[in-house]
């Protein structure tokens, strides 16, 4: 596990609000190894979502480069980009399932894009349902599922085309603690089973501590600190990381006190 798989260099992105320029990404350099779960933590507004959306170009970066494997994403034309996006799964905080389709149809939707149809598609949907443990919900509509179940469908849909990368933008932020744990367990499981590389964005440090191998701390459009999760937890270098960890420890201590009482 020593191979640079996702490479981001000198990534800049600004938004314009009534002619006023808001710099959101100010030169991001990041590399993620194949098969690892990479966490990015930061306060609200740090630019985490913008960064992850630049990876599959839901947001067009102003400058800089994004590379996945040998493929430079930032230089792709429209058609080639769509082709490449089919190899990059993405899950969202609000799940973004299609309410007009059953669970089965939701999972089959990306398969149609890659021309997987008929029996092969059915088998793939079945396989995905098994993976996320929702076989009995095959014919349900998203409207009848709980948040955790919806995110499982989201994961199944994102994995249907057997992508190399999964981007997760606050995928557990709308879920209760217990459901969060089970979804994170699922992500760890598919990471192991399929060797999937996962980039996990969150503002909850415990999510990173529980799930990730390496992490970065983001603030104000910059990555302040990167490294192994245990290193950053034991020796945080930057003020933001120390802040995060202080809050994290405080919560844990309070929580343990509660339990003792």
């Amino acid at each position, binding site marked *: 596990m020593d191979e640079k798989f996702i490479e981001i260099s000198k990534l800049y992105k600004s938004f314009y609000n009534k002619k006023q320029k808001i710099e959101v990404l100010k030169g991001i350099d990041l590399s993620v190894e194949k098969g690892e779960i990479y966490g990015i933590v930061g306060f609200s507004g740090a630019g985490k979502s913008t960064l992850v959306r630049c990876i*599959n170009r839901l947001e067009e970066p102003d400058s800089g480069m994004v590379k996945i494997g040998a493929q430079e994403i930032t230089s792709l034309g429209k058609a080639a*980009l769509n082709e490449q*996006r*089919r190899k990059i799964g*993405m899950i*969202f905080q609000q799940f973004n399932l*299609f*309410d*007009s389709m059953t669970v089965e149809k939701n999972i089959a939707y990306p398969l149609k*894009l890659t021309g997987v149809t008929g029996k092969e598609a059915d088998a793939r949907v079945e396989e995905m349902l098994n993976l996320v443990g929702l076989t009995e919900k095959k014919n349900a509509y998203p409207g009848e599922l709980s948040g955790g179940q919806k995110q499982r469908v989201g994961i199944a849909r994102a994995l249907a085309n057997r992508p190399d990368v999964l981007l997760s933008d606050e995928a557990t932020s709308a879920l209760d603690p217990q459901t969060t744990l089970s979804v994170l367990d699922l992500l760890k499981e598919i990471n192991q089973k399929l060797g999937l590389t996962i980039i996990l964005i969150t503002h909850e440090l415990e999510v990173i501590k529980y799930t990730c191998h390496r992490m970065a701390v983001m603030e104000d459009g910059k990555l302040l600190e990167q490294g192994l999760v245990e290193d950053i937890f034991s020796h945080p270098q930057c003020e933001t990381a120390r802040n995060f960890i202080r809050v994290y420890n405080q919560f844990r201590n309070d929580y343990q006190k509660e339990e003792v009482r």
Partner: protein
Amino acid sequence: MSLYKYSFFEVLMHSFSAEVWAQVLPAISETMYMVGVSSIFVLVFGIILGLVLVMTSKEGLVPCKVIHTILGAIINCFRSLPQVIIIIVMLPVARALVGKSYGSNACIISLVASCVPLFARLVESSLLEIDKGKIEAAKAMGSGNMRILFTIMVPETLPSLIRAFTNAVVIVISMTALAGSFGAGGIGYIAVTYGYTRFQHDLLFATIIVLIVIVQAVQIVGDTLSKIILKKRHLI
């Protein structure tokens, strides 16, 4: 029967008589023909224009300021004119297209001219209701714009689109009655010539009853369809 000679109740009772309905029934079928044909045109062109509006808007899938602005301006022009004026304006157009400026087919042209812009705006606002996240998700999967439009945006907003079309049909119906007074025939013609000019209020009552029943039926069908879909998706 006029209200000037008979009591309200007597006129109302007479509005159900066979004699009255012998005149009203053919008018109903004429009105239905105009409403039906116009609604189909309104549906087709309204959807197309509504989709173009949404697609070309600044936040749309294929932003195009020129098309969006010009189309929006044309639609607004038509929408700022009262229906009576649209009917009058469209008379020469109807003559050019169907050879005469009166009768059902001429009427359909002014109905379409007035209701397509209205329905296009309704379609636009229905489609804009969609959760942007769903479009993002489809984009992230590598779905093309046309596919997103027809497999995500339209199906996801279908209940709202059905309601919008129901509203449009109700307006088509009321406009058909209005156009009746400009020689289009149908229910509106009966109401104006007999109910207004000749004081045959029993006939006027009958047309009112017919219009209420038709509009109610359309509304119920539209609401029910939309509800069935929402129920099926467990969204209500």
